[in-house]
C-alpha cells in the first residue's frame, strides 16, 4: 500500500505505558558491585565445573 502521509498513526493511538520510570545513569541501583559480581562469577564457575564432572563420570553408568 502506498504511504500517503495523510494519516499519521500517532494521532490515532493511546499509549500503554510500562508503569516504570527510567533511572538516570548516575543513580543506577540494582547493578552488582564489583565484589559481588566477582563472587557470583566464582560461584557460577564452581557450579559449571561440578556439572562437567557429572557429565563425564556418568557417561558409562548402565541402567536397565
Amino acid at each position, binding site marked *: 500500500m502506498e504511504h500517503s502521509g495523510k494519516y499519521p498513526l500517532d494521532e490515532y493511538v493511546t499509549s500503554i505505558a510500562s508503569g516504570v520510570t527510567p533511572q538516570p545513569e548516575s543513580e543506577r541501583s540494582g547493578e552488582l558491585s564489583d565484589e559481588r559480581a566477582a563472587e557470583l562469577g566464582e560461584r557460577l564457575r564452581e*557450579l559449571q565445573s*561440578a556439572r562437567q564432572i557429572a557429565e563425564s563420570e556418568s557417561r558409562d553408568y548402565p*541402567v536397565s
Partner: protein
Amino acid sequence: MNLQDWSYDHPADAVDLTRPGALNSLLDKYGGSQPDVLTNVLAHAFASGAQSAVLEYRYIDADYRDEHSRFYSTTFRRYPSIAHRLHFFTEQMPSALTSQDEPARFNNLGYLGYTVLRPLPGAPVGRTMLAPQAGTLPHVTCLARDEVNLLGESLEVAGTPFISQDAQMSVCAHATLWMIAHYHHLAFGGPRLLPGDITEAVPDDIGRGMPSIGLTLYQISVAASRLGYPALVYGLDPPPPEESLFRLACRYLNSGIPVIVGGDEHVFVLVGYERLNAGQPDERIRFIRHDDEVGIYIHVDNYLLDDYAPWDYLVIPLPQKVYMPGEDAEAVGAAHLRQALDDEAARIGTELRDRLDAKPRELSFRSTVVRSNEFKTGLEARQVPAALAAVYRRMQMSRWIWVVELVDRDLRRLGKPCVLAEAIIDATDHLKDAHVLSWRVPGLVGQWNPDTDTLSHRTLDPTPPLRSVGRATG
C-alpha cells in the same frame, strides 16, 4: 495368551469393581506373566475410590501400534495389533448404560483415568493416565491434563503419564524418556513422541537398539537432547558445592518438570514431593515417583533406605529454551536481590537484609522456572497487588523465566503466603553476563531493559507476603 480371546463383537464391557473377585478377574485376564505393575495400577485405582470400570475393546493405541509396527509385527509369534483400554470411575455405572437406544453417558461418574492394556503377556501395562489419590494430589507437582473419548463421551483426567517397559523395544530408560516426553507434550505442548521415536533417538554405538538390554546415562542424555529436551546431569556423590539432592530435585519439581534419578543401575521419574514434619528436627522430604517396573505415584519415605539406594545421578530433561540451570539462576537472583536490598537500604530499611543473614536461617531462596505467560496470567490468582501486577504484565519477558523468590521459612511451613521479594531472570540469558529482568524488594520494583541496557523502577506501597509461583505446597 490365546489370540482368539482378544477380539470381541461388542465395543465395551462395564465391570463392577465392588464385587468380590472383580479385580482378580482383571488380573487373571490381563496380568500375563508379569502381573506386578498391573496389580499396582489396579490397587491404585481401587484405593482412589474406583467402584466401576469400563473395558474398551479394539482400542487403537498410538504407542502400542507403534511398538507393534516396529517390533511385534516382526516376530514369529503373533501379537494382535490392537489394545484394550480400562477406564476407572468412582461411581457405579447407571443402568441406562445397557440401553441400545441411548448414547452411553459417563459424565458425572467421577472419572479417575485409564490404563492401556497391551496384548503382551510379558508387559501388559501400556500408556496410563490416572489421577493421584486425594492425599497425594497436592504434592504431585508434575500434573498434566489429558482428554479422553470413550464411546463418544469426552472425559478429562489430570495426572502424570506412565508406561511400563516391554523389555524388548524399551527398558527402564526408554520408558522413563517416554514418560518425560509425553508429560511435556500434555503439559507444555511439546510434540507427541512414540516409543519408536525414542528408540531411534538413542545412539546405537553401544549395544544394539532392539531388543535392548539397557542403556547408559550418556545414551539417555543424548536421546533426550535429540528428542528436544536437552538434559542436565548432576552427580550426587557428592552433589555440587552448597547444593543437595533435595535442593536440586525440588527446584525442578516445583517448576512442574519431572526429574530422572539413576540408582542401583535403574532409572525412575520423580513427579512430586512432600515436606514431612516441617520445622521439626526430623523434617524430611518424601518423594513421589513413577517406576516403570513397579507402578505409579510411589512414595519414597527415605531415599537413603530406598531399594535403589544410593541414588547416584539426577538427569533433568528441560524444554529447549531453558538454557540456564536452576542453581545458576538462583545464584544470579540471590546476588541481585542482596544488591538491591543494600542499594535501597536508605529508602526501605535494613530489616530484610538483616534477616537474610540471621542464624538460624529465617529466609531462603526458592527458584522456579515457569513460562512467562503463565507467570503473568497467574498474578491475580496469586493476589499480587494491582500496581505490581500492572508492571509485570506489561514487561516483555523471555518465553521461560526463572523466578527466584526470597521466602520466609516459617510462613512457608504454615502454608501461608511467604514470598518477600523476587527476581525474574531470562532463562536464555548469557551466563558470563547474566542480568535480572526485574527485581522486587519491599516498596520497589526494578526493571532492566536488555535492548537499551537501561534501568527503570517504580515505588510500591508496602506489599504483604505473596504466594509462591512454585507448584509445591508447604
